[in-house]
């Protein structure tokens, strides 16, 4: 079981990289549109987007049995959802490169346009990557909870990036709360959809996931919580990663024909 699970680690990397990059693109674009003074932070976050996507795509190649033939994955565009996801990810990666460049050399001018484009393409990529998992051969995935989970992760990453870009605290808190609510809702939908076998397997994982994603907003909202922000930065991504592994494991454990 664990061998099957860790075989899917490249997909965990890819989906989380896309969602993290999209969250960062949205946060830095909002900062640019508001003509934020925290230009160094926005530049730093904005220039990480490209690197994150390159790492995510590179690691995802390890999921393939024949990585050197990966170029063939574009062959069935746009009919195949997987081909569509790859095309959108490629466009997002290219856009993010130019967005980072624009942030360095043309702060808040050309960067605004590229930021908006990157954010929209990023959101489209998150949406399509959610659709990739809506498949009949894996009944546990063939439901809206996956899309909710992907949207929730993106929102949480966006909120963290907003904090880094020093966007107004209340905006980040609202986005974060929305993200956590979506993650909790997706966990509930997953639980209702799961078979008894999947529930027996996933119970402890789900509890760990919910505790981890629940700690961040509590620490954020608790005044003077010791090591609050640091623990929050650790626990939320850990919770999201746990949730992603759980999603992939459930399909292996769950009933298949």
């Amino acid at each position, binding site marked *: 079981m664990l061998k099957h699970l860790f075989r899917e680690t490249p997909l965990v990397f890819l989906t989380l990289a896309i969602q993290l990059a999209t969250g960062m693109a949205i946060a830095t674009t909002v900062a640019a549109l508001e003509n934020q003074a925290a230009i160094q932070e926005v530049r730093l976050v904005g220039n990480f987007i490209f690197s994150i996507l390159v790492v995510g795509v590179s690691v995802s190649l390890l999921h393939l*049995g024949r990585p050197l033939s990966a170029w063939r994955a574009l062959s069935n565009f746009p009919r195949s959802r997987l081909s569509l996801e790859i095309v959108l990810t490629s466009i997002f990666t290219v856009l993010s490169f130019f967005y980072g460049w624009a942030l360095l050399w043309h702060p808040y001018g050309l960067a605004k346009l590229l930021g908006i484009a990157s954010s929209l393409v990023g959101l489209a990529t998150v949406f399509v990557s959610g659709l990739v998992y809506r498949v009949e051969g894996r009944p546990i995935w063939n439901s809206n909870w996956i899309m909710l989970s992907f949207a929730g992760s993106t929102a949480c990453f966006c909120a963290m990036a907003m904090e880094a870009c020093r966007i107004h605290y209340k905006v980040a808190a609202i986005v974060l709360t929305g993200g956590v609510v979506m993650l909790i809702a997706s966990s509930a939908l997953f639980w209702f959809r799961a078979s008894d076998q999947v529930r027996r397997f996933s119970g402890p994982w789900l509890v760990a996931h919910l505790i981890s994603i629940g700690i961040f907003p509590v620490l954020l909202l608790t005044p003077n919580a010791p090591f609050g922000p640091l623990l929050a930065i650790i626990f939320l991504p850990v919770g999201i990663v746990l949730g992603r592994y759980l999603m992939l494991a459930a399909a292996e454990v769950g009933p298949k024909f």
Partner: protein
Amino acid sequence: MSQRQIAFFVDATRCVNCKTCEVACKDANDSGPVRRFRRVRTFEGGEFPNVFAFNLSVACNHCEDPACVRQCPARAYSKRESDGVVVQDPEKCIGCRYCTWVCPYGAPQYDESEGRVRKCNLCVEELDRGGSPACVSSCPLRAIEIGDLDEVASRPGTVMQVVNFPDPSLSRPSIRFRVPKEARDA
């Protein structure tokens, strides 16, 4: 849409789960120790005293609307115009395993040592020579047959849906069954 659609006819009232079809398929396709293109499954159901059990030999159903053809990013799957057989080209396969997710029947099978997926191709080379697939010619009880889908579907006592079988509307599988009466009524 192909001009003609070949379909499997599986007579569960004859199948005794001897697995000769599985072995013949493995031998014909040299599919190795891991992959089982054809699998004989036992299905049970009903409530006492009306319980039933039957065996079904299932491989690729060469669906009329195959999800693998639609979703394979590398176009490794194609549906033949002449007879509707869904053929997989292992040379084009990149080993993404997406077809193993989208197929409701578990037909495509991944081999880690090869790094690619393969599936039942209905022994098309033999079919083109006028012969039969290995599973059909090897079954000692003639529980598996192939024929035109229209002819197979019109046989008396034939059903498209059996207990625990994925919803046929998903991909319109080219397979029909004859199952015990109790299983039809369940």
